[in-house]
């Protein structure tokens, strides 16, 4: 007890004790209790508005600073750096190249100049391709005072640097500990909370009901939390070890979830059967599935794996769009691990997202699983303002399959022979290629999930 005799120490201990108590009380009163009860104080909206004003000011300062030095601010276009006209198919471009309408011939007609088309496409893709840019974080027009999202960071003005410094202090000194404490409390309560600010659900009558499947686009692990916030779902996924595994086992005690053993993922029929059984039981909650299979950077929606669309039941699509101005929620799992990612999340200003519940869809007569999947994907992309892409999210890690190259060759050969009904052909080829991919899909999925779990 000797160390208590020093008066300075005594004071320090008391201060510390008081501040921690005050901290925890504030936390409890202002965040946890309202969250549990569903009440809002309106603090968040005020916070968001203030932040936006500050960001706008910061950007204008940077622009002024750049003008003084006669330089251009690095502003990302959404179109990339290539002056592209409206995208046209291989057939259209080659017809243009040849300059005249081709009539059907029996003998394939080859032009030496055809190579120009492939050459140009090739070099365009070196400079900027549609797929690779979906797997890195989206770029912002205005700076949100996070160094990680700024390419122009140099000393522009004292005021701006001071503001940035203040921002660092606030984010790491106040927001981060706040969220870490929340996280620890939350996990032990089996509810993981991060600062979810600005939850704007629309069309509440379209919420998923029992006996259905809820599908959504996937950007971050937080997607799950956001949707779970608003309704109870059964999750589908691989059994993990460690902290995730413990949480999975705990979740199962309260409601039925479908966790697969790694070996079972390869058996698609078994997976489909378990899903069907769950869905058929009307007392069970709707299943939550992310058909892309991996995290995409929230500017586009990539190919939906058709497995979840083969089951005969109602599908409730959900579109989730994050507002990138406050903090980038995208998890680039090939660049950052989970802990690093959580750290960045918790030291951002806020995570703001919009969730739209879309009207339920059913598979129509004569529509196969892939077409149904594409229809749902188009609806989600349209609502969320995302680009609808046919590319497979698995390309984040895997190399392009030869089937894609073959498709290009098929298209070209059709031009030579002068086929007229190109439209149907390309659709058929997409389906064929996906069928070829089918058998390799479970492998890809298990590869992705295993890396995600680490």
């Amino acid at each position, binding site marked *: 007890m000797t160390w208590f005799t020093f008066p300075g120490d005594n004071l320090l201990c008391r201060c510390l004790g008081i501040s921690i108590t005050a901290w925890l009380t504030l936390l409890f009163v202002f965040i946890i209790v309202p969250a549990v009860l569903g009440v809002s104080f309106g603090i968040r909206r005020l916070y968001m508005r203030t932040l936006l004003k500050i960001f706008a000011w910061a950007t204008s300062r940077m622009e002024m600073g750049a003008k003084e030095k006669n330089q*251009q601010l*690095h*502003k990302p276009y959404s179109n*990339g*750096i*290539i*002056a592209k006209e409206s995208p046209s198919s291989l057939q259209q471009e080659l017809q243009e*190249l*040849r*300059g005249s309408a081709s009539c059907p011939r029996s*003998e*394939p007609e*080859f*032009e*030496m*100049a*055809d*190579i*120009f088309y*492939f*050459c*140009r*496409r*090739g*070099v*365009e*893709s*070196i*400079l*900027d*391709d*549609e*797929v*690779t840019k979906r797997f890195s974080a989206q770029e912002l027009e205005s700076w949100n005072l996070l160094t990680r999202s700024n*390419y122009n960071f140099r000393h522009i003005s004292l005021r701006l640097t001071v503001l940035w410094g203040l921002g660092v202090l606030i984010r790491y000194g106040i927001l981060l500990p706040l969220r870490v404490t929340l996280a620890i409390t939350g996990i032990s309560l089996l509810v993981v909370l991060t600062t979810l600010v600005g939850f704007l659900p629309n069309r509440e009558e379209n919420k998923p009901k029992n006996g259905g499947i809820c599908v959504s686009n996937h950007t971050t692990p937080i997607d799950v939390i956001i949707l779970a916030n608003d309704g109870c779902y059964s999750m589908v996924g691989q059994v993990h070890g460690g902290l995730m595994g413990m949480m999975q086992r705990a979740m199962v005690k309260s409601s039925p979830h479908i966790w697969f053993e790694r070996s079972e993922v390869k058996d698609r029929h078994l997976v489909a059967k378990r899903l069907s059984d769950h869905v058929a039981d009307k007392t069970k909650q709707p299943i939550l599935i992310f058909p892309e299979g991996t995290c995409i950077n929230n500017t586009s929606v990539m190919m939906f794996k058709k497995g979840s669309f083969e089951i005969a039941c109602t599908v409730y699509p959900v579109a989730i769009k994050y507002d990138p101005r406050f903090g980038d929620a995208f998890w680039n799992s090939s660049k950052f691990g989970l802990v690093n990612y959580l750290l960045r999340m918790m030291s951002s200003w806020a995570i703001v997202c919009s969730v739209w519940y879309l009207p339920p869809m059913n598979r129509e007569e004569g529509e196969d699983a892939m077409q149904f999947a594409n229809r749902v994907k188009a609806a989600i992309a349209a609502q969320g303002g995302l680009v609808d892409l046919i*590319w497979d999210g698995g*390309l984040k890690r895997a*190399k*392009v399959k030869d089937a*894609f*190259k*073959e*498709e*290009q*060759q*098929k298209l*070209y*050969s059709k031009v*030579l022979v002068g086929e007229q009904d190109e439209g149907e052909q390309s659709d058929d080829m997409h389906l064929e290629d996906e069928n070829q991919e089918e058998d390799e899909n479970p492998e890809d999925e298990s590869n992705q999930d295993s890396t995600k779990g680490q």
Partner: protein
Amino acid sequence: AVGPKGIFRVIERSEQWSVGELEPEDFGAIRELSMNPIGDRIISAFFSPGKETVDFASFVRILAHFHPTETSRSRDGVQPEPANSRTRKLKFAFQLYDQDRDGKISREELLQVLRTMLEMQVTEEQLQSIAERAIQEADLDQDDAISFDEFRKVRGVDLIRDQIDNWEY
């Protein structure tokens, strides 16, 4: 045109791959390029014969071929021909065919290109007859190969000169 912002993006992209020099494998990371039937040839166009890596300066020099051509350029004979002249662009395309860089597209080289562009979609006989016809139409001096000058005169290639000017980046 690749302005300052464009250069920034190009630098960023090469930083994604490695620092300093690029190897052919680095280009493999570009998905759309792997799908392109002549993707491998385009990649090898960046590497000088015998060299296994390309540095940033050479990389940009090759890309410069695709800058739009200025139509009004005074030829005073003293200036070296700019990278983006029509001739240079045609030369780039010519070298996609002429892999051994001997200045002529031989029958075999033409067949190889046709094979990569069409692979399993046509039979070997069809490939041979396409190549045969292309050479017959283009080969003016009857040496069974297509030189660069003959290439420029091929139907479609000379018409394309206007199209090449639209290769804008």
